[in-house]
């Protein structure tokens, strides 16, 4: 009797790219729901526009590059890039912000480098940085979070603002948007407010910015679930959050008036989204065990530096891209010890 042959191993395989991506998307749900709850319909529009653009751009590029379209779209990586970028965008930004950012992320940062597996930089963060450098005004259009005494736009008003740029008659752009806690902290510390005075602002909540703290808690939960399901390694989030905690603790202890508290930094802005979903993007991150620790620590420290002394209120995207650049070198310098060899450099 004759049989088909192939190479080992033969057992049913343990994991699958599209299942991995689905798991990551599922883990985004709690954080995304919190974001939706606090910041309104704009969040949903951003997600839909970015996801749709990502899929279309990926399909078009695959077609142009002569790669299998259906099978590659099925891996879910483009959709995930779109979703991650969509979650990072201000909910009241005009629709084309999400389109431009996602196009740049998929077309330039991902496909022009060779598609999934070959992009040296995190595509979603490349898209984000392009937007924040090119369209700084539109990138500040965050509405006041739910629960703050301010004008909140309903579904139709949000739709009109996002897609037609039309505001309700009784509103101005300033009245429907609000500075984010990271923004407030940056400006007010610049104006010599003390940290205690800043915290007393109604826009701050129990331990960080109102609303933002729960968004971060949501992403933290999703991230821990991801780690439990072995979809991500613990080293990058742990070292990123750890380094962010310790560096902010150091300055906070040194001068509690001029620096934000460690808890504020951990639960503000995109910290948790960045730690569990952005920095852990395997393609652009360091891959050795020790390397992941350095990589995560670098992101944590750079994030703090940019938030505190840099020109932007939030630093996750820049920190991730800077460390993406360093990842190949980190990998090269941190090889594991090979079994039966005394030290990694021994050959």
């Amino acid at each position, binding site marked *: 009797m004759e049989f088909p042959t192939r190479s080992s191993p033969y057992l049913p395989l343990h994991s699958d790219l599209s299942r991995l991506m689905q798991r990551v998307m599922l883990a985004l749900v709690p954080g995304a729901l919190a974001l939706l709850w606090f910041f309104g319909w704009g969040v949903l529009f951003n997600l839909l526009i970015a996801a749709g653009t990502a899929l279309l751009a990926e399909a078009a590029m695959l077609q142009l590059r002569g790669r299998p379209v259906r099978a590659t779209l099925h891996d879910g990586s483009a959709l995930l890039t779109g979703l991650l970028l969509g979650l990072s965008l201000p909910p009241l930004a005009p629709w084309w912000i999400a389109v431009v950012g996602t196009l740049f992320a998929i077309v330039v940062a991902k496909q022009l480098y060779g598609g999934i597996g070959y992009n040296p930089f995190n595509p979603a963060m490349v898209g984000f940085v392009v937007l924040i450098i090119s369209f700084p005004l539109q990138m500040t259009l965050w509405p006041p979070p739910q629960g703050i005494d301010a004008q909140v736009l309903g579904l139709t008003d949000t739709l009109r603002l996002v897609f037609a740029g039309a505001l309700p008659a009784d509103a101005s752009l300033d009245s429907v948007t609000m500075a984010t806690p990271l923004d407030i902290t940056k400006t007010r510390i610049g104006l010599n407010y003390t940290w205690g005075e800043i915290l007393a602002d109604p826009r701050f909540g129990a331990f960080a910015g109102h609303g933002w703290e729960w968004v971060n808690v949501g992403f933290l939960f999703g991230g821990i679930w991801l780690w439990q399901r072995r979809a991500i390694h613990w080293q990058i989030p742990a070292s990123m959050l750890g380094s962010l905690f310790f560096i902010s603790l150091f300055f906070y202890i040194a001068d509690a008036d001029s620096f934000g508290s460690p808890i504020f930094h951990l639960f503000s802005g995109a910290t948790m989204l960045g730690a569990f979903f952005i920095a852990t993007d395997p393609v652009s*991150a360091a891959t050795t065990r020790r390397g992941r620790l350095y990589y995560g620590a670098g992101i944590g420290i750079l994030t703090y530096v940019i938030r505190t002394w840099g020109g932007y209120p939030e630093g996750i995207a820049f920190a991730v891209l800077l460390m993406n650049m360093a990842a190949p070198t980190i990998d090269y310098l941190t090889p594991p010890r*090979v*079994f039966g060899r005394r030290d990694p450099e021994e050959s």
Partner: protein
Amino acid sequence: MQCLMVTLLSQPRRIPGGLRLDANKAQSLQQPLRAAGVPERLYIPLSQHIGDAAEPLVEVGDRVLKGQLIARSPGYISAPVHASSSGEVVAIGDYPVPHPSGMQAACIVIATDGRDQAAADQLRMENVLQADPADIRQRVRDAGIVGLGGAGFPTSVKLNPGPDREVDLLVINAAECEPYISCDEALMCSRPWEILEGIHIMRHALHARQVVIGIEDNMPNAIQCLQHCLDESEETGIRMIPVPTIYPAGGEKQLIYALTGEEVPSQGLPIDLGIVCHNVGTAAAIARALLQGEPLISRVVTVTGEGVRQPANLEVRIGTPVAALIEECGGYTDAIARLLMGGPMMGFSLRSDTIPAIKTTNCILAASYRETPQAPPASPCIRCSDCVDVCPAGLLPQQLYWYAHARNFDRIQDYHLFDCIECGCCAQVCPSHIPLVQYYRFAKTEIWSLESERQFSELARQRHEFRLQRLEREKKALEERRAKARKSLKPKAGDADAKQAEIAAALQRVKAKKAEQSVQARNTGDLTEQQQADIAAIERRRSSGSGQP
């Protein structure tokens, strides 16, 4: 004399990396170990081991007896081959042999006569445990015993630590870590005494101070059987240590690490640590040979999988075609999809079931598609480094893949390609379904062939340089001789005349020869008149110069 002391850990250690896999051993252990029948034809390959192929001692038509030496080992790293049953040699030639490539190699084919008549025993030793280790090694060698764990390295070589090495620890590898394979477990349950006797002989031959049996902790029955024998026997000093069940804990280096916490040096051997490792099956084979006089003509083979009706462990004659073993186990089921030799992690798939079981065949896995699905299409590597976490050798499989894919054979060696043991853990967890091990095998083979090419061209270069030197030397010598001759010669009178005469004579000879060759009609002996007339007409036409056909 090198004296290394090895300390066994009180608590065996978990090996680095590795995977927890479903054991799937119960299926084949439901029935007790039994002997498979002798097939009508035995296909006995001459190379069933690491090292030089054996050289046949029989010819087609010879009658052979069970246990008779039919091919001798030509070198130190080699093993002889014996007839597994009595019968007639009906062919010596190339037949499909167990090999991932599906290649053919030299086999001796025996048509068995059903009498299973044994040859005179020449292996049995009296008082083995008092015998000279060199004699024991010679008998083990004569018995054709090779490592039965899978690699098939000649056992006598591994029983010889060398004159300046001392063996502190003998590790008996009973950690059958690959899923589905249960031949060692079956052997331990049914013939524990034989194993222990073999271990005693090995210990004596190696002068090993300590002996430990390393076994995976998921085989309670085997542990119980062996422990029972250990408790009953007076001989103490053999310990059995269950190690955590994790693939590939049964790898030699991995098992030694689990038991002692020591790492065999990369590119080194266990003996570098004062350790020698042998498989349990090998121990039993040694006891059989030296105590019962039977060379290695059979071994235990697991026949299992959803593709076979009654999975079992069989004592199989070397050279029995796989089809006969499947038949022995009730035949194929409808689910049969793939035939593997060895386990699902490191084994290889067989193209046909006419291939024989050999000394290193531990398992025939007749697998269904559920058990061994089609290889899904591979996607690009996303550098998730799941492979890094499971690599027992501490390598960076994704980097090895990158450089193998790019055919960068220098860089891939910087990443220690040759420390890869091809266990398959990386490929098993790869979410992109990249057949990683295949890439590593490819790179290794390419590097080997580049290396041998390099050696070949180096040799050619050397030969070329020698040749140039030789030519130079010869030219010089010739010139010297000529110069000498010129000096010694002086022009003689009448030289020119003689030369002229010689030339004239030569011209004459050439002319004569040409004249002889100019008339060249052939086959003209028996022509009819008509034909001769035609020829004459043609000749006339030709000489008259008309170009008409």
